Every structure is written in C-alpha cells, then in structure tokens.
C-alpha cells in the first residue's frame, strides 16, 4: 500500500516537471494576419500593397465621418454655406466656416493627423522599396508624388509644418517646425525625382499599373502648381507646357459631366482620389462611425453635403436624392455665374429652386421654409446623384456614394498655365489661348485682355471653372485677396424662415476672416501639448 502511494507521488512529481518542461514554447503565440516588417517590401506585390496604403489615406482624409480635407478647404472659401440639420449640428464645421476655430477644432486636428499618417506611408515606400526594377522605381516615384501632394496642402494651409521624411524613432518624436522654403524645396525635389520614373497616363495600364495611379502628368502638373504657388512662374509654365503638349489630356466637351462618375479617369482627368459603390455598405456594415474611413470605399461627405431632406427637399426627376444639408451653394457663388453670363457652368454647378420644381421636386416644407442654413441653391458638383450610388434594393444608397474626388484636371492646368505665362514673361498671347480654350468649352466668348486685366480674368475664370472643387481657398490665400474675396464670409447663418421675402439670418459673433491670423490654420492643441518643439502659428496662442 505504502509503496503504491510513494510511486504515485513520484508520478505526480514527474507530471509537474513534465508540465514545466514542456512549456518552453507554450507561451510563444504568433500574431495572425500580419507580416513582419523585415519580410515585407520585397516583391512587386509588396510594393503595390505598401503604396496602396498611401492612396488609401488620401481616400480616408476626405471621407472620414465628420472629417474631410475637402470640407476644410471648401467651408472657409465662401463658395458654400455650412448648413446641416440645424444650428450646432456639427460645431467643428461651423467654426471653420465662420473662422471661429481654435487649435482644439477636431476637424483641423484630425486632418492634420491623417496628413502625417499619409506621409509616414509614403516615407516607408521611399525608404524600404528597393528600386531594382522599373515597376518598383515607378512605385517609389508614386510615393514621392503623393508625399509632395500631401506636403502641398500642409504648407499652403498650415505653413511651416515639421518636415518628416522617415519613419521616426521615439527619440525623434519631438520634431521642430520646418521652414516654408524648405518644404517647397522638398516638394520640388520629390516631384522632380519622380517624373522620370513615372509612365505616361496612356502607358499606365500597359506597365502593370492602373489608370487611377499617379502618372508622369500628375507629377508634372503638381510640380507646376507648386512652382506657381511659389511664384516661380517661368518654371511653372515650363512644367504646364510639358503636360499640355504631351497630348495625354484634353477637355471633356460636356462641362456638366466632368465631375460625374461617368467621366472618371476620362480625358480631362490628371489625378483623382477613388471611391467606389461596390462595397454595398448598409447602416450596419462598413464601420462608418467606428473607424475613420479606412475600410469604407464610399465618401460619406457626398451624403453629408446633399440637399436637406426630412420635410424639405424632394428630388423629383432631377436625379438627386436627399442628403443632410451641409455645404449648399452660397448666393455669392451663384451670383458670380450670373454676373459673368456663364449659364452652362452655373447650371452644371448649381440648381436653383425653379429648376428643381421643373423636375417635379421641391425645396420647401409645408410652412414654406427652406432647409436650415441654405438659401435654396443646390450644389450639383459631388452631389447626391442616384446614379452614383447603389440601387436601394441592394444596399443603403446614402452609404455608398462613390464619386471620385478630382484633385487636378486638365482645365485647371490650362488656367494655371495661363496664369504662369501672364505673370512670368507677359506671354499673354499664350495665356489668353489657354484661357479661351476653357471658355470656349462652355460657350463663352473668347477674351482679348492682357496684363493685370488678363490676370483678373484668369482669377475669375478659376472661380467659375473650379467651383466646389476645393481649390479656391488656397487660390485666395496665395493671391492675397482675402480682404475682398472673403469679405463677409461666415459672418451669419440662414434660418430658412422668411420675414416678408427676406430670409431670416443670425449674425455670428466673433466671426469672419481675421487678417494676420487666418492665413494659416493652427497646429492642433494636442500637438502643442505633446510636441514641445512646435511653435504655434500667429494668433492662436501658445
């Protein structure tokens, strides 16, 4: 009996020892669905996957819920009214539209943060992909172009941001401000280096890339634009001239279609950010509220900025469905078209109430009021087009608006070229030619002015041609015409109700563009708290 027990004890002890012994790799679990960084960036497919994350960030930065770079550029431009469901619907957007924002504004914070998410992803491609074949060289060039594009928005909107070109180690987290000149120099360097390695747009598919990826023309146009912003007009003209003479691009004859889904990556397109309707999102899929735009392929901001439904908007046969009422056209934008006699582009850009009614639609509720924050003008560019989303039977239409965002198109290049020639050498003939190409397309008479009058004409033309496309705010800042172009912008909001025939409005305290302050956005509050080396932009405190 006793021996049995001792034997048993031995077995038990052996058991414990065994368990301790066998546990050497018991704790060595492996993560799933990830690749170790030293195993990545090797193949062409790795390079594609890595550069796709750069594009994906451009998609996200304009389509995160309540965070959009496009909105950040549109709201203070005077082209749109903030609007929404009611006052205080989205306070951060209202603050931007009314120049009341501080460094704690969440949209400014998130766009700034996502810009550097984009930059890290481009830096990783540039630093880790080996340029050992033509495809990988093109991928590196793509990443450099996208990095330049991101720094372009940072330097024009925030000014002297930190210039980060590598993945930072914790010891390098405290980055000081760079200088505006250094950032422009880097943009030029990246684009100049990228151009030789990039295929032409027409060669993209053949080179195993995609029509929607960065082409030589993209980099050249962006370089031209950067040089124009730097007022290096002659160099800018050279770049634009290369794009124009490449024969790769042309104007879409029908202006009303240029931002529609059917015209995506057409002849006029130089660079677009892609969205898709193929995800078939519903309210219960796509993680729209949980995840900042990383896995949804649609752009929820097109829904956000559609004409307000509820008791107000009904589309009739206009092809539009109801949105949530942000970013409707301002009266000033509408008036600019009317003043210029520009009927084609006006009708393609803005629908008025009478036109909506002619489609059997309506804009007013039973008590004859307009939606809050609107003057009854529907923005048609990037609108809530039924044919640019899914069939309601398949999924939720408002969750699947997939219209691509046009970053740069040929008409923009023509107008920038005109501006560069006019400003650089006074080659007004060439400038006038390009300007009139744009005017002719929309059945406007050619102009014959020159010198400063031509410059004024080009500025006006840019406003009408590129309305709602997210370029005007940066144009106004670089031209320094804020005193006239932004006068009164964001100083009141409309209620939709009427006293007599005049729509009621509420003036906003402390609103409007403030010189020597609003030329740049502030660095986010969180940034000034966590980065001791950053110096805040003027007018925004420490």
């Amino acid at each position: 009996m006793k021996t049995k027990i001792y034997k048993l004890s031995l077995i038990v002890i052996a058991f414990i020892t065994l368990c301790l012994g066998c546990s050497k790799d018991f704790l060595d679990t492996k993560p799933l669905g990830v690749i170790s960084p030293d195993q990545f960036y090797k193949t062409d497919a790795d390079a594609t996957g890595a550069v796709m994350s750069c594009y994906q960030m451009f998609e996200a930065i304009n389509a995160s819920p309540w965070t959009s770079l496009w909105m950040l550029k549109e709201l203070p431009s005077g082209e749109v009214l903030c609007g929404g469901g009611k006052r205080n619907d989205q306070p951060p957007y209202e603050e931007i539209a009314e120049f009341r924002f501080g460094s704690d504004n969440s949209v400014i914070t998130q766009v700034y943060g996502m810009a550097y998410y984009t930059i890290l992803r481009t830096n990783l491609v540039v630093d880790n992909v080996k340029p050992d074949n033509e495809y990988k060289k093109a991928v590196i060039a793509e990443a450099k172009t996208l990095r330049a594009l991101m720094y372009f928005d940072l330097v024009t909107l925030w000014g002297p941001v930190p210039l980060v070109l590598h993945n930072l180690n914790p010891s390098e987290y405290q980055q000081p401000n760079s200088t505006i000149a250094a950032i422009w120099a880097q943009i030029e360097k990246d684009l100049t280096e990228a151009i030789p390695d990039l295929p032409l747009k027409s060669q993209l598919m053949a080179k195993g890339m995609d029509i929607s990826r960065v082409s030589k023309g993209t980099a050249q146009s962006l370089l031209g634009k950067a040089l124009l912003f730097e007022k290096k007009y002659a160099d800018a003209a050279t770049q634009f001239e290369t794009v124009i003479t490449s024969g790769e691009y042309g104007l879409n004859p029908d202006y009303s279609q240029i931002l529609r889904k059917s015209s995506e990556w057409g002849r006029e397109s130089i660079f677009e950010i892609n969205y898709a309707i193929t995800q078939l999102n519903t309210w219960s899929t796509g993680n729209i509220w949980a995840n900042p735009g990383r896995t949804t392929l649609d752009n929820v901001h097109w829904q956000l900025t559609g004409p307000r439904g509820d008791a107000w908007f009904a589309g009739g046969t206009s092809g539009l469905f109801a949105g949530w009422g942000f970013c409707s056209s301002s009266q000033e934008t509408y008036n600019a078209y009317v003043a210029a006699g520009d009927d084609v582009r006006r009708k393609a850009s803005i629908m008025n109430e009478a036109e909506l009614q002619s489609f059997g639609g309506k804009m007013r509720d039973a008590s004859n009021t307009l939606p809050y924050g609107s003057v009854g003008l529907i923005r048609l560019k990037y609108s809530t087009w039924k044919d640019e989303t899914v069939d309601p039977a398949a999924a939720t239409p408002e969750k699947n608006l997939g219209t691509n965002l046009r970053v740069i198109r040929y008409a923009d290049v023509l107008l920038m070229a005109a501006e560069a020639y006019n400003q650089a050498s006074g080659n007004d003939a060439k400038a006038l030619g390009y300007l009139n190409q744009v005017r002719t397309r929309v059945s406007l008479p050619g102009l014959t002015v020159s010198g400063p009058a031509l410059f004024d004409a080009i500025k006006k033309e840019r406003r009408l041609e590129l309305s709602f496309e997210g370029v005007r705010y940066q144009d106004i800042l670089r031209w320094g015409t804020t005193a006239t172009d932004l006068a009164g912008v964001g100083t009141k909001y409309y209620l939709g109700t009427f006293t007599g025939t005049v729509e009621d409005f509420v003036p906003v305290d402390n609103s409007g563009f403030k010189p020597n302050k609003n030329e740049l956005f502030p660095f986010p509050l969180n940034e000034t708290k966590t980065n001791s080396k950053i110096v805040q932009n003027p007018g925004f405190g420490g």
Partner: protein
Amino acid sequence: MKLTIVLFILAISQLMAVGTYSQSTRLSLNLKTVAVKDVLDKIEANSEFVFLYNSKLIDVDRTVSMDFRNEKISEILNKLFQETDVSYTVVDRQIVLTTKADQSSFSRLLNGQQGKVVSGKVTDSSGGSLPGVSVVIKGTTNGSITDPNGNYSVGNIPANSILQFSFVGMKMQEIEVDNKSVINIVMQEETIGIEEVMAIGYGVQKKNSVTGAISSVKAEDMQNTSITRPEQILQGKTAGVQVIPISGSPGAGMNVRIRGYSSNANSNPIFIVDGVKTQDIGYLDPNDIASMDILKDASSAAIYGAEGGNGVVMITTKGGQKGKTLISYEVQHSWQSAGNLPKLMDVNQYAQYMKEGGIINNVDKTYNTDWLKEIMETGSLTKHHISMTGGNDKSVFLLSLGYMTNDGIIKGSQDKFKRYSIRLNSDHEMKSWLKVGNHLSYAHTDRSAINETQGEFGGVISSALQIDPATPVSFQNNIPAYAQAIINANPSVLKDPNGNYYGISQYNFGEIVNPFVTMAITNGGIYQDNLNGDIYAEITPITDLTFTTRYGVDINYQNNHFWRPTYYYTAERNNGSTVVVDQNQMNNTWIWENFVSYKKSIQNHNFVLLAGMSAEDYYQRVTNVQGGPMVKEDPSFAYLSFLSGQTNDLVTGNPNYFKKESQFGRVTYDYMNKYMFQGSIRRDGASLSYVPKSGRWGIFPSFSGGWVISSEDFFNKTILSYAKLRGSWGQNGSLSNLLTTPYGYLPAITAANTGLIMQYPLSTGNSPAFEPAVAPNPNLKWETSQQTDIGVDLRAFKDKLTFTADYYVKTTKDLITLSNPPLEVGNNPAQINAGTVENKGFEFELGYKEKIGDFKYSANVNLSTLKNNVTYLDPTVGQINGAQVGPSGSWYATVFEQGHSMWHFNGYKTAGIDPATGNPIFVKKDGTKTNAAGITGADLQDIGSPLPKLLFGANINLAYKAFDLTVSASGMSGNKVMMAWIRTDRNQINRPTYFFDGRWTAAGQNTKIPGAGADSKTYNSDQIVFNGSYLRIQQIQLGYTLPTSMADKFSIKSLRIYVSMDNFFTFTKYPGMDPQPSPQYTSPTTTLSNSVGIDRGTYPIPRDIMVGASISF
C-alpha cells in the same frame, strides 16, 4: 435496563443530530509520549469534537503514544482508553468521558431521582427543542442529556449547585439552582465567525489566523434578495467595494471596484470560482453560492500574482453534506418599476424655454407627451431555485436547478433576461489517501436589450429624455403637414400596432428618434451557453501532505442574432435594406493547476507550506455573419437561409489566443495562534500576445504578519475579548489592459483594420493596402501594483461587538496606455507603460449582535474612504483623453492627467451666471474670467471627479420570535455626475425642469441657472456636473418563519415567507435619472472605465417589490 434507556436516548439524539459527524470524521494523529489531556486538546483543535469530563475522576495526565491515520473517532478513543475504566459516549460532536464508577452513578441518577430534582426544557433561539444537550452539575460528572423533545431531568442535586448546559455550536450556560425545580433554557448560538474559515487561494484559513485584509459575504446575505447577479450583493456589504452596474437593464453586467480605481483602463478584480478563474460570473445563480471572500490587500491577492492587482473575489459554491438528504426550494416574484425619474419640462415650459432661447419661435402645443412615463411599464422578476444535497461517508453531492426570468421596466419585452442553471458539485473519498470531486455548472442565458449602446445618440431612454414633449407617441387622427410630407416621401415610416404612424418630431432630428420607433426596430438577442467547472484530485500520500491537481474549464458559446428592418424616421435614421446578423463567439479557457501543501506543527509552531504551478490557455473564435436583403420582411424570415440576394453579405472572424503559466509558493506560520506570518511569491509568464519576450515574466512577492494581542497574558479581556493587529505588503500585476490590442507592441505590417481589410478601389478592382499596424514598443511590460495595509480586528463585550479597521496605500505603476505621440509620427500609438496611480483609504466595519429574550438584533455598518490620484504620467503622453461626449471628436469629457483624480471630468469652469447675458461667466485656466467667446479648448480643466470620497453601507437585522426584519442601505458621497445627454449640438432637446426653474430670463437678474439661449459651451462646463452623492435603501424585508412545531406538523424542515422592497428608496440631489449612471456607451476611445459618472441617459436601476418563500424538507 436503565442503561438501555440512556442508550435509547442517545440513539435518538444521534438520529436527530445534524449529520453524523462522528461517523464521517476521520482524524490523523501522530503523537509520541504525550499526556491524554494533550491528545484530547489535539483532537479538539483538529476537529469539531468537544470533550466533557471531570479531570478529578479521569486520569488525563497519563502519557500515551498515538499514531493514527484517517481513523474514526471511535477507533482513536478505543485505543486511547483501552485497559482503563474510562468509557465514552459520543453525541454528535460531544464526547462525554465517564468512569465505570461514574457510569453507575449516572444511571442511578436517571433511575433513583434521589435528592433535589430539577427538570426543564432546552430550546434553541427559534424555539425548537434541542435534544442531546448535556446538563451537568458543575464540578461533578453527574448530569443528564436532553431527550428528543429537549426535556431533561437531573436528580440528586446538592445545595448551592450550578447546572451547566452545553451543546456544540451553542454557548455554555450556567444557572444557579437555588430553589428552582424547573429550569427552562434557551441556548444561544456561539458568537459569529470565531472559527469562520476563509478562502485564501489554493487553500483555506481560519479567520482568526488571517493576516491580510479579507472580507466575506455569506450565503445568508444572498438569499432572499432580488439580486440576479452575484456581484450585486457586494454593494454595501463590505468596506472598500463598489459595484457599478453597466446598465440597470435585465442581465446587464457589473463592474466591481475593490479599493478604488487602480488602473486607467480595466480595474475589474478577477473572479475565482471554486478555485478556477472565470471571465464573467453572470452565469452563477446567487443561490448556489456559499460564500464570497474578497481579497483586498496585496498580500492576500499576491498568490494570484499577475492578475490580482485589482483584487480577487473568491467564490465558493455550496457543497454536499453527509447524512441527511435536504431539499430546499426558493421562489420569488418581484414587481419592478423606475424610481427617481427626473422631472422634465412639459410642453408649455418647453415652448417657453425654446422661445426665450431663440431656438424655436412657436412650439406647437397640441400634444404634451410625458415620454418617460410613456416608455415605462411595470417589470417582473421571477426566480425559482431547487437544491438537493446529501451523501454518505464516502460521497457527498449537491444538485441544484435555477430558473430566472426578468422582463424589465421598459415597454415591450425587448428588455428581457432569462437564465437556466444547473449545478452538480460532488466530492468522493475514494481511498483514505485519495479524494476526488468536481464542481460543474451549466447555464443557458437568453438576453435581449433595448438600444442603449448608442448613448446620447439615439438610445431609447436617452431619446425619451431628449425628444420634445410636443411630439406624440403616435399620431392619432390629424397628421401634421410636416409629418405627412415625410410619410408621403418615405413608404417605410413606421406605424404602431394600432396602425397609427409613430410621432415624428418637427423640432428634434438626427439621432434623436421617437423611442418607440427605436424599440420597434430592435429585435433579437444573445443566447449564451456556459459550461464552467473543474475536476480535482486530492492525494494525501503521507500525513499532512496534500497534493491537489485541478483541471478547470470556462467554456462560453454565444450567438447574437438580430435583423434590421427597413424604416424611415429622419434622413440620418433610416434603413432601406434588410439585414440579418449572426455574431458567434466561442470562448474556451482551460486552467490546469497542481499544488502541494504541507502542514506541520512542532510544539506550538505551526507551519503550512504551499507550492504549485498553473497553466492557462484562452482561445477565442469569433465569426460574424450577416446577409441580406431578406426575401420577406418578417421575423420568421430573419435567418440567413431566407435571403433574396447577397448584396448585404459580410463575413468576418478571427481567433485570439492568450496563454499564461505560473509558479507560486506560500509559507504560513503561527506560534500558538498568537504571532502569525505569511509570505508568498508568484512568478507569472504571459504569452507573446500580451507582452514581448523580454518583459513577459513578472515576479510578485508579498509578506504579512499578525499579532493577537488578546492572547498575551498581560491582556485584560474584561471588555475586549479579542484583539489582533495585522500588517501586509505585496505586489500584484495586471494584464487585462493589454487584451484590447493583442500584440499591440509588435512591429508588423497589416492590411486589417477593425475586422475588415483596407483596400483602395482601382479601375481593375480593389487592391489591398498594407501598412504598419502600430508604432512598436519592445519595452512593454506588466502593470504592477504595490499595496501596504495595516489593520486591526477587535471583538468586545463577549464577542457581541466586532470591529475591523484597515488603512491601505495602493500604488499601481507602469500603467498600460496608448501613447500619445505628436501627430507627425503618423502611426497608430503603441501601448506603453506610462503612469502611476495611487489609491489610499481607511476602511471600517463595525458589527453588533445581541439577543434580549425572544428579540434578536444585529447591525453592521461599514465605511470606507477613497483618495485617488494620478501621481505620475509620462510627459510624452501629456494627458490621456477619455470619454467623448457629444459630437465626434469635439469634447473629451474625461481625461487622465498627473496630479488629478483619474478620469476626472474635463470641462469649462464657470463662476456664476452673468446677469447681463444669462451666459455663465467662464473661468480660463489662468483664473481670469471671461465670456464664452474668450475661452478655447485650452481652458478645459478639472471640474470634478466621478469617484466617491466615501462609500458606506449598513445592514440591520431584527428578529422577534418568528418574525424578522432586514434593512440594508448603501451609498456614496463626494462623487460628481455629468448630465451628458444635454447635447451641445442639439439645443432643441428637452431638459429637466432644473434648467427651467430659476433660470435667467432678463438682463440684470441674478440667477444660478443659465438662460435658455446660453452659449453651447455652457453644456461643456460644470453647469452640467452635479453632486452625485446618494443613499439607497437596498432592502427592507419582513419575513416570517414557521415555528418548528408547526413545521413538524407539515413534515417540513423549515419555511420562511417574506415581503421585500429592494432598491426602493434612493435619496439624492441629482436632478437626472440615476445618481449612479451606468456607463453603457462605448466606442474606440470611450470605455466603461473612462465613462464612470457620465449619465448618457441609460437604463436606471429598477426598484422592486418582492414576495418570496423558501422551504426545505
């Protein structure tokens, strides 16, 4: 003949005794050359036997040697007294030693009835007769034993005698005989807890020898309450424990905080059920629990090392009992309702407020809806529980069945919880050296809930608070034009069961939805199957050495099934296409533990040594499947086989693995039960899913000591009967905060994001995007807490008064948090060890128990103080943003920063209302006063803490004859509550009349309440932060127990019926729903931990009126 009578009486007594202790108890003795007296003492010390003898007659100084292993008491006594004239009589736990000579006088007594005779009846405190009570004339061995009816008779009593009455478990009483011929005695139970045993992890310890800070809650505290989850009982019962329901809705979980909030994220304690760690104890029927021991200090918890940092709750379920089979049945029914509903503005007040604020000029006053009243109904809660126990010398078992159903206080039956549970616990003595057994529990739960998870963005209750009273529940006859237009344009506007359209608000929009619409579109629920338990073997190869091996499992399968119907309410709240969703989760944990304990006594030095190991493996599989549209929009088609297309299909799923292994040891020592010492150490290793290899091992030591001053010779016991000083120090860890992001330190390239793949849509199709998952942190390690505790345990007035006090300082270091790198880093932040939190406080527990005739009462009060401070936070983190309130990204209403209480409210400070404008006067961070335009986000500051400064609880029990009354209360003070459903971006919402009464209306008025049109920053300020102190009367219960004599007639053992009011009264100044709001809403940044005290308008804790009965056979 006479002896026969004695034996007959004894035999009867034996039958009547609870269990057959003497038959079942086995003792091991190994004593060399000791006095018989010492042998008897030793037996008393190691068993429940008590010897009664006259040392003048029995030679107890005779030396003997004894060596027995697992022998019955009879064997031992036979050996001990062989060849002497001593004979023994065992009556349950009492052993009377007599001499042969004495025996004859004993029988003479019974026979002769010579001299003075005293007789009487002995009863227990409830009036039941007590058989087998020994009645002895003091100083002699003459006496008698009570018969089955508790009657006795003692004759031959000399003058001036004293009768001693004694019975195990009862206090001995001495009565002077004087002239009395009848002496009736009521025996009193021994004072509470003297030999109470506590679970301490891998073993038990007598309460008297415990040196750490451990509080216990016993089964009695859990019976007869309306609680549905075991955690609930901890509230108010012991000092230093706070229970925060995640929601008041049926079946919702609980957060438990022991000694404050020690971590920035998860501060939940671990639950050890019958020795096995369990994720969630919601499956446990509280009726199955024998005791809950809360290990509060580090030295007690340190044996659970790595995970004991937030305290340990040891739960012991009831086991079987030898002998008699006992069947108990417990039934309860409660009617539930909401108490403390806030008073909201009616339509007239609302109209006036909106007009004054310039928000809405003319509110249509056709309707005046009291939304809170509309959504509420009387809920019901029914519980049944049957348990059966029994066993013989070798095996004992408990089998129990429980059923609970709870339909909550919101209309409809979407707020419902059902639990079916089965438990089988058994223990078998296979051999003298081998004991095996099991605890097995199976539970099925079925829970559905109203929409609460969206917080202030469209929850049923938050919307009922927010939506204007001008909107009707349904449009009865006239549909207003604005609503008609919406109905015309949208065919899927919903109708109520009577065919009327649900009311659509013309003033509130967006996520604020008619709560009946939200209820109508919510369906489905979560089914869960839980299998929990363990099998164990205890091997005793040599005396005092026990080896235990135990394999435990915690298996949880759950299915969440629901579907989304098409509906239209507003542009932001509608659904155009049906979707069916099945979310399946399988959570599987096994824990294997092996440990050896060795008990040794050398003279008066007593040691217990423990060493062991533990390995744990957690495996989770998640499959989420959804599809749509449905072929027909009908609940019976809401399954994935009945879809008309695949357009809404989405499949995701991934496994998770976590593993741990540990070695541990403990030394417990005492000298004469007077000086005690305990030391333990545990080494824990975690799998790479938590921490990198370099930091995966943690070593957690602890020490504690105690000194029973009252055992010293110099101690005067006249008032204080017991006094013990305790002190402890120890370290614990915590890994639970790493679970949210497995491998959150590892450099890795991924294409996944929140369960989906990131892709970029190229013209040729989507192309996956690969990027770094996180900024890596190779230095990540365990979170460690260190705690020092000093305490004192006192008993006074013959142990009627008990008092325990503790002071502790608990410091949690290397808190795990996401870093907050400058945005230029451009990467998801890594998890880092970034901060230190300190909790310190006093804890007091005071109890008093008394009996005056038929009146018994006891009272317990407890009080604890809490001081919480973030003493360090890595400067690179600056502050950690916590819960968001209102529009996305615009306001972090709680932050974690150095020098403040953790997760304090972060808002604008105000200094009264500006009489000129009706806006608050705002105070900038530098202290200067300004108007709303003058402050920015940089002026957000600490505007109060949701953490209580004081927690208190009280329990009073009164009993008179068959009636008993229990009153218990708990509460807290010093905590603040934020009324977060007042949204800055929706100023047309309704509000409590608090904001209407006494508000600013015209220039020049001095008021405390801002005007109706106050700036939106007002609602990001201390104007919505309130004193959240409260006192809740948890229970007032009146019970009636059928007297034993009556019970006997009905052939039942006991019957108690009761009526009760649970959580019925709450005293608070908070004008919102519940001063202890439930942190239901979560998002990636908003967690249950950083949302404490934020009232987003969630399910209130219901109050109950309950009737119940417990009966046992």
